[in-house]
């Protein structure tokens, strides 16, 4: 039996592995792009449905990039230039053992400012930046999924950080 068939996305095991390994990343990717939590999950589901429908046309090694690309396209079709306001639903106050109300207030303020700064990033920078910071994906992993060079990912990371500092400092 040849390799291509063994690795076919049409195989239950391969398809299921792709789901459990990447569904969360695809969902979060959509969330970073500005979908709310429910939309992000719906679009992620649709991307996986399309992967199943097209399973014989998508080589296994391209499946991850396929999922992100389809998710991206579906989201763009649905959203059409809507202003993105990203809100993290579950903000946690850092170091909750610290009872100092002043400290807690500052932390809360900082997190609001950070949210604001993240929302002001370009979509490309924000997506890459949060995939790395939140999902702990390496630059190489992000590059593979978004079909970018590693260098391009690195540049977006640096630029995102510089940009966020500018917003925070009001520069």
């Amino acid at each position, binding site marked *: *039996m*040849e*390799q*291509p*068939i063994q690795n*076919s996305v*049409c*195989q*239950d*095991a391969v*398809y*299921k*592995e792709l*789901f*459990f*390994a990447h*569904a*969360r990343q695809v*969902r*979060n990717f959509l*969330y970073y792009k500005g979908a709310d939590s429910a939309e992000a*999950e719906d679009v*992620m*589901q649709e991307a*996986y*449905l399309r992967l*199943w*429908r097209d*399973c*014989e*046309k*998508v*080589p296994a090694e391209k499946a991850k990039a396929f999922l992100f690309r389809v998710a991206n396209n579906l989201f763009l079709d649905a959203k059409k230039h809507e202003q993105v306001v990203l809100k*993290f*639903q*579950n*903000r*946690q*106050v*850092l170091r909750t053992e610290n009872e100092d109300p002043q400290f807690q207030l500052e*932390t809360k303020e*900082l*997190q609001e400012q*950070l949210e604001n*700064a993240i929302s002001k990033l370009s979509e490309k920078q924000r997506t890459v930046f949060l995939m*790395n*910071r*939140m999902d702990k994906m*390496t*630059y190489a992993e992000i590059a593979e999924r978004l079909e970018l060079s590693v260098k391009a*990912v*690195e*540049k977006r*990371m*640096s630029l995102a*950080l510089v940009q*966020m*500092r500018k917003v*925070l*400092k009001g520069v």
Partner: protein
Amino acid sequence: MENTNHDETLLSRWLADKLTEEELGQLQQREDYADLQTIVEGLKGFETPPFSEQDAWEKLQAHLQTEPKKEDSQSQSSTSSQETTPLPPHQSETPETPIRTIGRRNWIYGIAAALALAFAALIWLQDAEPKYSTMLATKAGEQRELTLPDRSDVQINAATTIGYTATDWPDHREVYLDGEAFFQAKKGKTFTVFTQQGTVKVVGTKFNVFARGNELEVKCTGGQVQVINPEGTEKVLIKYNEQVSVVNGRMQRRRGLEFSPKWYKGESIFKSVPRTRVLNELERQYGVTVINEDSVDNPHTGKFPNDDLEKALRMVAVPMGLKFEMSGDTIRFYREE
């Protein structure tokens, strides 16, 4: 200027803990270092909305079960019809060990298997045609659509075999064809159609390839294609509204199409072709056997619908001056004395 170039990836490498000690030392001297640290630390307080792989997977299963069967969802790379049905609702695996509990499928290795479906006969010809991993064969009376790996669309006429290798596509953009197909190549995409009777090189275009017996006919309805005879000694570039025929290795080019192919819109058209070609097409479109007891073989011009056998038979027999009678799937054409 050199400094900014260097800076392009400095911060990203800092985030990935990839800086040399010297670089880190320099970065720590910078006035913005404390701010950068604050940002990175502050982000650690954020969480994405809760997500359960398990719940999402079950939801996906529900979607897959209600999915209407699409014609092209029947995988050509599978050897068992089970592979094309939605995954069964799954039971008790934990998200952390998604693969461990799944039973490995028993693949029927190396055996050519055919999936006889309502609309399609999909054949995995591993031994017969090892060069192409995906082979698709239509039966008589059946037309299908196919999307190539580069998203180009192909309409496939009845009694046609087509093949390609998806995994190999970027390096070997090859389509094998025995029969008839209409290609709509995506803009900027190139591939080569191999037939017994010659090859067709494609650069973003629409064209019909008829490759049966010793005959190859290519009609171009958009863009341009290059047609090469089997020996590679003759090459012809045809453009929009041109066609070329290769019969027994010899090329005949014609400016201006005799007609645009309409078979994928439900109509088979002929212009000055041998009667046998018309009768063969009847057999392919309706899955019938035609016996022609008449010996006259004047060139035939005409057409017939692909979805109404009675009408088609009349439209073929009357201009030929013949009668016909049907018994079962066999049609006898004869001349009334």
